[in-house]
Protein backbone atom coordinates (compact mmCIF):
# COMPACT_ATOMS: atom_id res chain seq x y z
CA UNK A 1 0.00 0.00 0.00
CA UNK A 2 2.58 2.51 -1.12
CA UNK A 3 0.75 5.80 -1.46
CA UNK A 4 3.56 8.28 -0.98
CA UNK A 5 4.92 9.87 -4.16
CA UNK A 6 7.96 12.09 -4.34
CA UNK A 7 7.05 14.52 -7.12
CA UNK A 8 3.86 16.10 -8.41
CA UNK A 9 4.45 14.48 -11.81
CA UNK A 10 4.77 11.12 -10.09
CA UNK A 11 1.62 11.73 -8.05
CA UNK A 12 -0.41 12.41 -11.21
CA UNK A 13 1.32 9.84 -13.44
CA UNK A 14 -1.09 7.85 -15.58
CA UNK A 15 -4.14 9.61 -14.13
CA UNK A 16 -4.71 12.48 -16.57
CA UNK A 17 -6.45 12.39 -19.93
CA UNK A 18 -8.37 14.75 -22.16
CA UNK A 19 -12.09 15.10 -21.43
CA UNK A 20 -11.92 13.83 -17.86
CA UNK A 21 -13.78 15.17 -14.81
CA UNK A 22 -11.68 16.50 -11.92
CA UNK A 23 -12.79 17.68 -8.48
CA UNK A 24 -10.55 20.30 -6.91
CA UNK A 25 -10.84 21.26 -3.24
CA UNK A 26 -10.80 24.71 -1.70
CA UNK A 27 -12.96 27.75 -1.03
CA UNK A 28 -11.68 30.80 -2.88
CA UNK A 29 -7.92 30.32 -2.68
CA UNK A 30 -8.14 28.80 0.80
CA UNK A 31 -7.21 25.12 0.92
CA UNK A 32 -6.68 24.67 -2.82
CA UNK A 33 -4.35 21.88 -4.04
CA UNK A 34 -2.18 24.38 -5.82
CA UNK A 35 0.80 22.14 -6.58
CA UNK A 36 -1.44 19.45 -8.08
CA UNK A 37 -3.35 22.04 -10.16
CA UNK A 38 -0.02 23.22 -11.55
CA UNK A 39 0.80 19.58 -12.30
CA UNK A 40 -2.43 19.31 -14.28
CA UNK A 41 -1.48 22.49 -16.10
CA UNK A 42 1.93 21.07 -17.05
CA UNK A 43 0.36 17.81 -18.26
CA UNK A 44 -1.53 19.72 -20.93
CA UNK A 45 -4.69 17.60 -20.43
CA UNK A 46 -7.56 19.40 -22.16
CA UNK A 47 -11.36 19.59 -22.35
CA UNK A 48 -11.55 19.10 -18.62
CA UNK A 49 -14.73 19.32 -16.58
CA UNK A 50 -13.75 20.85 -13.25
CA UNK A 51 -15.92 20.58 -10.15
CA UNK A 52 -14.84 23.24 -7.67
CA UNK A 53 -16.71 25.78 -5.57
CA UNK A 54 -14.78 28.61 -7.22
CA UNK A 55 -12.54 29.01 -10.26
CA UNK A 56 -9.42 30.53 -8.72
CA UNK A 57 -8.27 34.01 -9.68
CA UNK A 58 -6.28 35.13 -12.70
CA UNK A 59 -2.90 33.38 -12.55
CA UNK A 60 -3.55 31.41 -9.34
CA UNK A 61 -5.13 28.01 -8.79
CA UNK A 62 -7.74 27.01 -11.36
CA UNK A 63 -7.27 30.42 -12.99
CA UNK A 64 -4.11 28.92 -14.50
CA UNK A 65 -6.05 26.13 -16.23
CA UNK A 66 -8.44 28.73 -17.62
CA UNK A 67 -5.52 30.74 -18.98
CA UNK A 68 -4.24 27.68 -20.86
CA UNK A 69 -7.79 26.90 -22.05
CA UNK A 70 -7.65 23.40 -20.60
CA UNK A 71 -11.12 23.72 -19.07
CA UNK A 72 -14.24 22.90 -21.07
CA UNK A 73 -16.77 23.12 -18.27
CA UNK A 74 -16.93 24.33 -14.67
CA UNK A 75 -19.39 23.14 -12.04
CA UNK A 76 -19.24 25.80 -9.30
CA UNK A 77 -21.30 27.96 -6.97
CA UNK A 78 -19.48 31.26 -7.37
CA UNK A 79 -16.95 32.43 -9.96
CA UNK A 80 -16.97 36.18 -9.37
CA UNK A 81 -13.27 36.70 -8.76
CA UNK A 82 -11.98 35.65 -12.18
CA UNK A 83 -11.90 38.06 -15.14
CA UNK A 84 -10.63 35.46 -17.59
CA UNK A 85 -13.54 33.26 -16.61
CA UNK A 86 -16.01 35.99 -17.55
CA UNK A 87 -14.34 36.50 -20.93
CA UNK A 88 -14.27 32.81 -21.81
CA UNK A 89 -17.82 32.27 -20.63
CA UNK A 90 -19.22 35.23 -22.55
CA UNK A 91 -17.39 34.17 -25.73
CA UNK A 92 -18.92 30.68 -25.40
CA UNK A 93 -15.56 28.92 -24.94
CA UNK A 94 -16.43 27.78 -21.44
CA UNK A 95 -19.52 25.97 -20.17
CA UNK A 96 -20.75 26.72 -16.71
CA UNK A 97 -23.12 24.90 -14.39
CA UNK A 98 -24.04 26.80 -11.26
CA UNK A 99 -25.01 24.81 -8.19
CA UNK A 100 -26.08 26.35 -4.90
CA UNK A 101 -23.09 25.93 -2.60
CA UNK A 102 -24.83 23.58 -0.17
CA UNK A 103 -26.26 21.54 -3.02
CA UNK A 104 -22.79 21.25 -4.54
CA UNK A 105 -21.31 20.13 -1.22
CA UNK A 106 -24.08 17.59 -0.70
CA UNK A 107 -23.91 16.28 -4.28
CA UNK A 108 -20.22 15.53 -3.72
CA UNK A 109 -20.84 14.03 -0.29
CA UNK A 110 -23.61 11.86 -1.75
CA UNK A 111 -21.47 10.80 -4.71
CA UNK A 112 -18.69 9.65 -2.42
CA UNK A 113 -21.15 7.84 -0.16
CA UNK A 114 -22.83 5.87 -2.95
CA UNK A 115 -26.05 7.86 -2.92
CA UNK A 116 -27.20 8.53 -6.51
CA UNK A 117 -29.70 11.28 -5.68
CA UNK A 118 -31.35 13.16 -2.82
CA UNK A 119 -34.05 15.78 -2.27
CA UNK A 120 -33.40 19.30 -1.01
CA UNK A 121 -35.53 22.39 -0.50
CA UNK A 122 -32.71 24.58 -1.79
CA UNK A 123 -33.68 26.07 -5.16
CA UNK A 124 -37.35 25.06 -5.16
CA UNK A 125 -39.28 27.58 -7.28
CA UNK A 126 -36.09 28.89 -8.95
CA UNK A 127 -34.41 28.17 -12.30
CA UNK A 128 -32.15 25.71 -10.47
CA UNK A 129 -35.14 23.36 -10.24
CA UNK A 130 -35.97 23.62 -13.97
CA UNK A 131 -36.18 20.17 -15.52
CA UNK A 132 -35.64 18.42 -12.20
CA UNK A 133 -38.08 16.24 -10.31
CA UNK A 134 -39.92 18.09 -7.54
CA UNK A 135 -41.54 15.97 -4.88
CA UNK A 136 -43.54 16.78 -1.78
CA UNK A 137 -42.59 15.41 1.65
CA UNK A 138 -44.71 16.33 4.70
CA UNK A 139 -46.41 19.08 2.71
CA UNK A 140 -43.22 20.78 1.53
CA UNK A 141 -41.66 20.70 -1.93
CA UNK A 142 -38.15 19.41 -2.51
CA UNK A 143 -36.07 19.21 -5.68
CA UNK A 144 -34.11 16.11 -6.62
CA UNK A 145 -30.37 16.57 -7.06
CA UNK A 146 -27.94 13.86 -8.15
CA UNK A 147 -24.72 12.72 -6.52
CA UNK A 148 -21.45 13.72 -8.16
CA UNK A 149 -18.34 11.63 -8.70
CA UNK A 150 -15.14 12.45 -10.57
CA UNK A 151 -12.43 10.56 -12.43
CA UNK A 152 -9.90 12.30 -10.21
CA UNK A 153 -10.07 14.37 -7.02
CA UNK A 154 -7.20 16.62 -5.98
CA UNK A 155 -7.26 17.88 -2.40
CA UNK A 156 -5.10 19.88 -0.01
CA UNK A 157 -4.57 18.91 3.63
CA UNK A 158 -2.39 20.23 6.43
CA UNK A 159 -1.10 16.90 7.62
CA UNK A 160 -1.08 13.39 6.26
CA UNK A 161 0.66 10.05 6.65
CA UNK A 162 1.71 7.24 4.30
CA UNK A 163 -1.59 5.51 5.03
CA UNK A 164 -3.41 8.45 3.41
CA UNK A 165 -4.98 9.69 6.64
CA UNK A 166 -5.56 13.43 6.43
CA UNK A 167 -6.00 16.36 8.81
CA UNK A 168 -7.13 19.74 7.52
CA UNK A 169 -6.42 23.13 9.07
CA UNK A 170 -9.05 25.74 10.02
CA UNK A 171 -11.28 26.90 7.15
CA UNK A 172 -8.94 25.28 4.60
CA UNK A 173 -11.01 22.13 5.18
CA UNK A 174 -14.13 23.28 3.23
CA UNK A 175 -14.78 21.02 0.19
CA UNK A 176 -11.65 18.87 0.57
CA UNK A 177 -13.07 16.05 2.76
CA UNK A 178 -16.07 15.34 0.51
CA UNK A 179 -14.04 15.55 -2.66
CA UNK A 180 -11.54 13.07 -1.24
CA UNK A 181 -14.39 10.55 -1.02
CA UNK A 182 -15.87 11.22 -4.48
CA UNK A 183 -12.90 10.71 -6.78
CA UNK A 184 -12.37 7.34 -8.49
CA UNK A 185 -8.77 8.24 -7.71
CA UNK A 186 -7.87 10.81 -5.05
CA UNK A 187 -4.51 12.53 -4.80
CA UNK A 188 -3.75 14.60 -1.70
CA UNK A 189 -1.03 17.19 -1.23
CA UNK A 190 -0.03 17.74 2.39
CA UNK A 191 2.02 20.44 4.09
CA UNK A 192 3.35 17.98 6.65
CA UNK A 193 3.95 14.32 5.85
CA UNK A 194 4.21 12.64 9.24
CA UNK A 195 5.08 9.08 10.27
CA UNK A 196 2.15 6.67 10.33
CA UNK A 197 0.94 6.41 13.90
CA UNK A 198 1.80 9.97 14.85
CA UNK A 199 -1.69 11.33 14.14
CA UNK A 200 -4.13 10.56 16.95
CA UNK A 201 -6.75 8.29 15.25
CA UNK A 202 -9.47 10.33 16.97
CA UNK A 203 -8.27 13.47 15.18
CA UNK A 204 -8.20 12.13 11.59
CA UNK A 205 -10.63 14.00 9.32
CA UNK A 206 -10.27 11.84 6.19
CA UNK A 207 -9.48 8.14 6.72
CA UNK A 208 -6.78 6.82 4.40
CA UNK A 209 -9.12 4.55 2.43
CA UNK A 210 -10.27 7.61 0.47
CA UNK A 211 -6.75 8.64 -0.54
CA UNK A 212 -4.82 6.79 -3.25
CA UNK A 213 -1.70 8.91 -3.54
CA UNK A 214 -0.13 11.48 -1.29
CA UNK A 215 2.58 14.04 -1.89
CA UNK A 216 4.49 16.25 0.51
CA UNK A 217 4.39 19.95 -0.44
CA UNK A 218 6.23 21.67 2.39
CA UNK A 219 5.63 25.36 3.17
CA UNK A 220 3.38 26.18 0.20
CA UNK A 221 2.73 29.81 -0.65
CA UNK A 222 -0.76 30.64 0.62
CA UNK A 223 -2.80 33.41 -0.90
CA UNK A 224 -5.16 35.84 0.80
CA UNK A 225 -7.89 37.32 -1.40
CA UNK A 226 -9.26 39.93 1.02
CA UNK A 227 -6.68 40.94 3.60
CA UNK A 228 -8.73 42.61 6.35
CA UNK A 229 -7.25 43.75 9.64
CA UNK A 230 -8.28 45.84 12.62
CA UNK A 231 -6.10 48.57 14.11
CA UNK A 232 -4.21 47.90 17.32
CA UNK A 233 -5.65 50.39 19.77
CA UNK A 234 -4.22 51.60 23.07
CA UNK A 235 -1.80 48.71 23.18
CA UNK A 236 0.42 50.47 25.67
CA UNK A 237 -2.39 52.00 27.66
Amino acid at each position, binding site marked *: MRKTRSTVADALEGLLRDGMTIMSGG*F*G*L*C*GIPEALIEGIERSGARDLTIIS*NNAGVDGIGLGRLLATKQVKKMI*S*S*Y*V*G*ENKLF*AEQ*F*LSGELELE*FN*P*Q*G*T*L*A*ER*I*RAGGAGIPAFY*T*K*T*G*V*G*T*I*IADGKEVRSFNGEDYVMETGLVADLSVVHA*YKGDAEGNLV*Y*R*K*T*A*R*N*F*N*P*MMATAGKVTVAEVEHLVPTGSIDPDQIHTPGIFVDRIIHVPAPT*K*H*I*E*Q*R*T*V*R*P*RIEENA
Partner: protein
Amino acid sequence: MAWTRDQMAARAARELQDGFYVNLGIGIPTLVANYIQEGMDVRLQSENGMLGMGPFPYDGEEDADLINAGKQTITTLPETSFFSSADSFGMIRGGHIDLSILGAMQVAENGDLANWMIPGKMVKGMGGAMDLVAGVKRVVVVMEHEAKGQAKLLRECNLPLTGKRVADLVITDLGVFTIARRGEVDMRLIELADGVTLDEIKAKTEAHFTVALDAVAA
Protein backbone atom coordinates in the same frame (compact mmCIF):
# COMPACT_ATOMS: atom_id res chain seq x y z
CA MET B 1 -33.50 61.89 5.60
CA ALA B 2 -33.18 58.15 5.57
CA TRP B 3 -31.12 55.60 7.43
CA THR B 4 -27.42 55.24 6.60
CA ARG B 5 -25.86 51.84 5.98
CA ASP B 6 -24.75 51.74 9.59
CA GLN B 7 -28.20 52.69 10.88
CA MET B 8 -29.70 49.90 8.77
CA ALA B 9 -27.15 47.47 10.23
CA ALA B 10 -27.94 48.69 13.74
CA ARG B 11 -31.67 48.15 13.10
CA ALA B 12 -30.95 44.63 11.79
CA ALA B 13 -28.93 43.89 14.94
CA ARG B 14 -32.13 44.38 16.95
CA GLU B 15 -33.42 41.15 15.36
CA LEU B 16 -30.72 39.18 17.17
CA GLN B 17 -31.66 37.29 20.30
CA ASP B 18 -29.53 35.86 23.05
CA GLY B 19 -28.32 32.38 22.13
CA PHE B 20 -28.92 32.78 18.38
CA TYR B 21 -26.78 31.14 15.72
CA VAL B 22 -26.56 33.70 12.92
CA ASN B 23 -25.25 33.86 9.38
CA LEU B 24 -24.39 37.33 8.06
CA GLY B 25 -24.14 37.97 4.32
CA ILE B 26 -21.68 40.21 2.51
CA GLY B 27 -22.08 44.02 2.46
CA ILE B 28 -24.35 45.83 4.95
CA PRO B 29 -25.15 42.53 6.76
CA THR B 30 -21.46 42.19 7.68
CA LEU B 31 -21.73 45.52 9.52
CA VAL B 32 -24.38 44.02 11.81
CA ALA B 33 -21.56 42.38 13.80
CA ASN B 34 -20.51 45.88 14.93
CA TYR B 35 -23.90 46.49 16.56
CA ILE B 36 -24.38 43.35 18.62
CA GLN B 37 -25.56 44.56 22.02
CA GLU B 38 -23.27 44.24 25.01
CA GLY B 39 -24.11 41.05 26.88
CA MET B 40 -25.93 39.50 23.91
CA ASP B 41 -24.50 36.04 23.30
CA VAL B 42 -24.69 35.16 19.60
CA ARG B 43 -22.61 32.80 17.47
CA LEU B 44 -21.73 33.85 13.94
CA GLN B 45 -21.62 31.09 11.35
CA SER B 46 -19.54 31.39 8.20
CA GLU B 47 -20.74 28.98 5.53
CA ASN B 48 -17.23 28.06 4.37
CA GLY B 49 -16.98 25.99 7.55
CA MET B 50 -16.79 27.89 10.82
CA LEU B 51 -18.97 28.59 13.81
CA GLY B 52 -17.97 31.24 16.35
CA MET B 53 -16.39 33.77 14.01
CA GLY B 54 -14.14 36.34 15.63
CA PRO B 55 -13.16 39.87 14.51
CA PHE B 56 -10.62 40.78 11.83
CA PRO B 57 -7.03 39.99 12.89
CA TYR B 58 -4.47 42.57 13.91
CA ASP B 59 -2.08 43.61 11.16
CA GLY B 60 0.57 40.91 10.80
CA GLU B 61 -1.59 38.18 12.37
CA GLU B 62 -3.54 37.23 9.23
CA ASP B 63 -3.81 33.50 8.55
CA ALA B 64 -4.53 32.43 4.95
CA ASP B 65 -6.25 29.30 6.30
CA LEU B 66 -8.69 31.36 8.36
CA ILE B 67 -11.19 33.28 6.23
CA ASN B 68 -14.91 34.00 6.16
CA ALA B 69 -17.35 33.44 3.30
CA GLY B 70 -16.38 36.83 1.86
CA LYS B 71 -12.77 35.55 1.71
CA GLN B 72 -11.76 38.11 4.36
CA THR B 73 -9.18 37.21 6.99
CA ILE B 74 -10.77 36.71 10.41
CA THR B 75 -9.92 35.21 13.83
CA THR B 76 -11.16 32.46 16.14
CA LEU B 77 -12.84 32.75 19.53
CA PRO B 78 -12.68 30.28 22.44
CA GLU B 79 -15.97 28.74 21.24
CA THR B 80 -14.93 28.36 17.58
CA SER B 81 -15.36 25.12 15.67
CA PHE B 82 -14.38 24.20 12.11
CA PHE B 83 -16.13 21.75 9.80
CA SER B 84 -16.56 20.78 6.15
CA SER B 85 -18.81 22.57 3.65
CA ALA B 86 -21.20 19.59 3.75
CA ASP B 87 -21.57 19.89 7.54
CA SER B 88 -21.89 23.66 7.22
CA PHE B 89 -24.80 23.43 4.82
CA GLY B 90 -26.26 20.63 6.90
CA MET B 91 -26.55 23.24 9.65
CA ILE B 92 -28.09 25.72 7.22
CA ARG B 93 -30.43 23.43 5.30
CA GLY B 94 -31.31 21.47 8.41
CA GLY B 95 -32.78 24.53 10.11
CA HIS B 96 -30.15 24.77 12.86
CA ILE B 97 -29.28 28.40 12.10
CA ASP B 98 -31.72 30.84 13.72
CA LEU B 99 -31.24 33.91 11.58
CA SER B 100 -29.81 34.86 8.20
CA ILE B 101 -29.26 38.53 7.39
CA LEU B 102 -28.57 39.16 3.71
CA GLY B 103 -28.83 41.65 0.90
CA ALA B 104 -31.21 41.53 -2.08
CA MET B 105 -31.82 43.07 -5.48
CA GLN B 106 -35.60 42.59 -5.28
CA VAL B 107 -38.17 41.35 -2.75
CA ALA B 108 -41.83 40.73 -3.61
CA GLU B 109 -44.81 41.28 -1.33
CA ASN B 110 -45.18 37.49 -0.93
CA GLY B 111 -41.58 37.09 0.27
CA ASP B 112 -40.00 36.01 -3.03
CA LEU B 113 -36.39 37.10 -3.03
CA ALA B 114 -33.94 37.73 -5.90
CA ASN B 115 -30.30 38.47 -5.24
CA TRP B 116 -28.06 36.46 -7.54
CA MET B 117 -28.63 37.05 -11.21
CA ILE B 118 -29.37 39.79 -13.73
CA PRO B 119 -30.09 38.21 -17.13
CA GLY B 120 -27.75 39.49 -19.82
CA LYS B 121 -25.03 40.35 -17.33
CA MET B 122 -22.14 38.12 -16.29
CA VAL B 123 -23.46 36.04 -13.45
CA LYS B 124 -21.08 35.41 -10.58
CA GLY B 125 -23.13 32.64 -9.02
CA MET B 126 -25.46 32.21 -6.08
CA GLY B 127 -22.84 30.90 -3.67
CA GLY B 128 -24.67 29.86 -0.52
CA ALA B 129 -27.60 32.27 -0.84
CA MET B 130 -30.18 29.76 -2.10
CA ASP B 131 -29.36 27.33 0.71
CA LEU B 132 -29.52 30.08 3.33
CA VAL B 133 -32.92 31.43 2.31
CA ALA B 134 -34.35 27.91 1.97
CA GLY B 135 -33.00 26.53 5.23
CA VAL B 136 -32.50 29.20 7.87
CA LYS B 137 -35.41 29.67 10.31
CA ARG B 138 -35.77 33.42 9.83
CA VAL B 139 -34.54 35.51 6.90
CA VAL B 140 -33.95 39.25 7.29
CA VAL B 141 -33.20 41.28 4.17
CA VAL B 142 -31.22 44.51 4.43
CA MET B 143 -31.15 46.59 1.24
CA GLU B 144 -31.51 50.04 -0.26
CA HIS B 145 -35.17 50.85 -0.86
CA GLU B 146 -34.55 51.71 -4.52
CA ALA B 147 -31.90 50.96 -7.14
CA LYS B 148 -31.25 53.91 -9.45
CA GLY B 149 -34.75 55.24 -8.86
CA GLN B 150 -36.37 51.83 -9.46
CA ALA B 151 -38.45 50.21 -6.75
CA LYS B 152 -36.97 47.01 -5.28
CA LEU B 153 -40.01 46.07 -3.20
CA LEU B 154 -42.29 44.73 -5.90
CA ARG B 155 -45.60 43.02 -6.52
CA GLU B 156 -43.57 40.27 -8.22
CA CYS B 157 -39.83 39.90 -8.75
CA ASN B 158 -38.80 40.14 -12.40
CA LEU B 159 -35.27 38.84 -11.77
CA PRO B 160 -34.62 35.09 -11.39
CA LEU B 161 -35.43 34.07 -7.83
CA THR B 162 -33.05 32.98 -5.11
CA GLY B 163 -35.97 31.59 -3.12
CA LYS B 164 -39.75 31.52 -3.16
CA ARG B 165 -41.60 33.03 -0.17
CA VAL B 166 -38.48 33.15 1.96
CA ALA B 167 -38.19 36.72 3.34
CA ASP B 168 -39.59 37.41 6.83
CA LEU B 169 -38.45 40.99 7.36
CA VAL B 170 -37.10 43.68 5.05
CA ILE B 171 -35.06 46.60 6.39
CA THR B 172 -34.39 49.40 3.90
CA ASP B 173 -33.01 52.89 4.30
CA LEU B 174 -36.62 54.12 4.47
CA GLY B 175 -38.32 51.67 6.82
CA VAL B 176 -39.05 48.14 8.00
CA PHE B 177 -41.59 45.66 6.59
CA THR B 178 -42.79 42.27 7.77
CA ILE B 179 -43.80 39.65 5.23
CA ALA B 180 -45.87 36.47 5.71
CA ARG B 181 -44.10 33.43 4.26
CA ARG B 182 -47.16 31.22 4.35
CA GLY B 183 -50.87 31.60 3.66
CA GLU B 184 -52.30 34.86 2.34
CA VAL B 185 -49.90 37.45 0.99
CA ASP B 186 -49.41 39.92 3.84
CA MET B 187 -46.78 42.65 3.82
CA ARG B 188 -46.84 45.32 6.50
CA LEU B 189 -44.91 48.50 7.06
CA ILE B 190 -44.03 48.48 10.75
CA GLU B 191 -41.44 51.27 11.03
CA LEU B 192 -40.42 54.42 9.20
CA ALA B 193 -36.80 55.58 9.17
CA ASP B 194 -36.08 58.91 10.83
CA GLY B 195 -37.55 61.76 8.82
CA VAL B 196 -39.22 59.53 6.22
CA THR B 197 -42.92 60.11 5.54
CA LEU B 198 -45.54 57.54 4.71
CA ASP B 199 -46.17 59.33 1.41
CA GLU B 200 -42.51 59.03 0.43
CA ILE B 201 -42.32 55.31 1.19
CA LYS B 202 -45.61 54.68 -0.63
CA ALA B 203 -44.30 56.53 -3.68
CA LYS B 204 -41.15 54.45 -3.75
CA THR B 205 -42.72 51.02 -3.15
CA GLU B 206 -44.47 49.00 -5.86
CA ALA B 207 -45.46 46.16 -3.54
CA HIS B 208 -48.86 46.36 -1.86
CA PHE B 209 -48.55 46.69 1.89
CA THR B 210 -50.65 47.63 4.86
CA VAL B 211 -49.50 50.21 7.35
CA ALA B 212 -49.05 48.86 10.86
CA LEU B 213 -46.85 51.51 12.43
CA ASP B 214 -48.82 51.51 15.67
CA ALA B 215 -48.04 47.85 16.25
CA VAL B 216 -44.45 48.75 16.99
CA ALA B 217 -45.11 51.86 19.01
CA ALA B 218 -47.54 49.92 21.20
